[in-house]
């Protein structure tokens, strides 16, 4: 009880202290690198077909569709999974440490965009697919931590599955 109260008071005080980063709305070089990692170009396929194939791959990966707008080429999906590790469980059980990860919500946002929107000379059936993986981890003390995932392997695996699904090799941007 006492620990929770101290944690709550600290969270209140600290929450008020966190300030918005000065460059929150300026695209940084790191974000440009992230864009390259998250994007692939597919030629010779209609936007609708690419969107349907993407949705199927997300379903294959266990995601539930949350929102979509086919006119804008947007899909959002999520799934809840465990985030525990043996060490974390032992620390929570025997040391009372609440900072270990308990479970997580993994969210994805996938956007299909015609290449023509960026480059007028591109063929009509060329599209960029950009996917972003995020996760919100809940700890044993019920606090949450969120992050955008920047492990290249995740994106490689997703695009390999999508390429296989549409029988088209993806190109890096």
């Amino acid at each position, binding site marked *: 009880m006492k620990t929770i109260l101290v944690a709550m008071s600290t969270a209140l005080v600290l929450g008020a202290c966190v300030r*918005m980063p000065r460059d*929150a709305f300026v695209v940084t070089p790191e974000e440009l690198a992230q*864009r390259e990692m998250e994007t692939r170009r597919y030629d010779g396929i209609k936007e609708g077909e690419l969107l349907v194939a993407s949705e199927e791959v997300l379903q294959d990966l266990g995601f539930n569709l949350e929102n979509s707008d086919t006119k804008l080429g*947007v899909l959002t999906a999520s799934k809840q999974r465990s985030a525990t590790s043996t060490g974390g469980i032992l620390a929570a059980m025997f040391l009372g440490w609440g900072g270990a990860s308990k479970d997580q919500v993994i969210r994805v946002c996938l956007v299909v965009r015609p290449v023509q929107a960026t480059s007028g000379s591109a063929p009509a059936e060329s599209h960029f697919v950009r996917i972003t993986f995020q996760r919100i981890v809940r700890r044993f003390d019920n606090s949450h931590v969120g992050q955008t995932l920047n492990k290249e392997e995740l994106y490689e695996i997703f695009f390999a599955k999508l390429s296989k699904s549409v029988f088209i090799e993806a190109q890096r941007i």
Partner: protein
Amino acid sequence: MKRELIPVTVLAACLLPGCAEHLNQRMFDENEQTQLEKRSYESRIFDTADKEKVMRGVISTLQDLSFVVERADFFLGTVSATRLGRNYQLRMTVSVRPKGSTQTIVRANAQFNVQPVEDPKAYQDFFSSLEKSLFLTAEVGE
């Protein structure tokens, strides 16, 4: 009274009197800025009537800024997105609406954790990124 309840009582005594007083302020985000001032820095007008192009540009800009789009609705012209940091959550809603027959007005509003973003520079940076994405220059809205 149990000893562990003392900090709760002290905390409640400090926080509760402010609740009623600040409810209106929190509900309507009242501060020294007028509604007109807010609209002015939260909006930009683009010389295009292509709503789809502008909305796709908004989505692309938000993605470049590490936001994850949560909802997009072409009919309403709205896009909602969230950016997650180590100890913060930055949420943004952008609406795109026609202005006359040749222009489009884009309005954005953001909140950082539990606070509304009221720094005009933040919106200026966002619209500057959007201008680059759309290859268009915007004028200050409304």
